[in-house]
């Protein structure tokens, strides 16, 4: 709890690196909280927008003394952004009510701790990737740039680049399975 308050103090003063560490620690939980919206709005855009809003509000944010205060605020912010996006694509009041009930049933969102064993296993599998999928995945990981730019950087057409990213992910999942790791089970809420 003390560490959380100290981290919030850093973020409040405009420490982007501290914000990045906090955001990395809650990303998985925050994204998971948006699962009910997956078919109704682009949750990647919602998540990024919510994090940017949290950053803007952080200097005025007051910790309520309970654990995961900023994460709880981020979850509410993300859901509000998601509902706004849903209304733009003409969702019915019934759909919105159903989602509210689903979210109530979800309960509190808790941060997930990083798994060092999974990290090592993924790194080992990446080393075994065939060259083309490895290059494509590497480009995606290095920077979140436009896919046309990333494809050109590894001298692939856009479609070939996208197909190679898909192949890389499939290869990693199969490699992890051979090592006895089911990525979906590891990431289950």
């Amino acid at each position: 709890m003390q560490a959380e308050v100290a981290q919030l103090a850093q973020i409040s003063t405009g420490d982007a690196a501290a914000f990045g560490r906090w955001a990395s620690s809650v990303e998985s939980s925050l994204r998971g909280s948006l699962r009910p919206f997956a078919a109704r709005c682009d949750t990647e855009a919602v998540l990024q927008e919510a994090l940017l809003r949290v950053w803007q509000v952080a200097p005025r944010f007051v910790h309520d003394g309970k654990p995961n205060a900023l994460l709880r605020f981020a979850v509410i912010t993300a859901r509000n952004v998601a509902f706004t996006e849903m209304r733009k694509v003409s969702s019915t009041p019934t759909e919105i009510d159903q989602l509210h009930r689903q979210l109530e049933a979800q309960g509190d969102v808790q941060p997930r701790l990083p798994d060092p064993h999974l990290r090592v296993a993924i790194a080992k599998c990446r080393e075994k990737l065939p060259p083309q999928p490895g290059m494509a995945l590497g480009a995606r990981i290095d920077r979140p740039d436009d896919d046309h730019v990333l494809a050109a950087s590894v001298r692939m057409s856009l479609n070939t680049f996208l197909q190679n990213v898909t192949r890389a992910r499939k290869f990693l999942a199969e490699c992890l399975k051979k090592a006895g790791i089911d990525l979906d089970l590891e990431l289950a809420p």
Partner: protein
Amino acid sequence: MTPEELLLLEQVVSARRERTVDGVVKSHPAWHDLDAAGRTAAFDETVRQRAVERSLDPAGESSTIKAVLARLR
């Protein structure tokens, strides 16, 4: 899923998002071209992809976090 849908899905899995003129993060155009099943599949693939990215990045940052931090700087 058809090859065309797979290409759409892969674009949606990217963390690259444009912004509106007033600075709000926009949905990916490819997301609108997917049906409900495709959108849910894109969500699941994104969860996997970001876990892989966090694991492979020295600072533990996924492309989502890199995209957000790039907006702050």
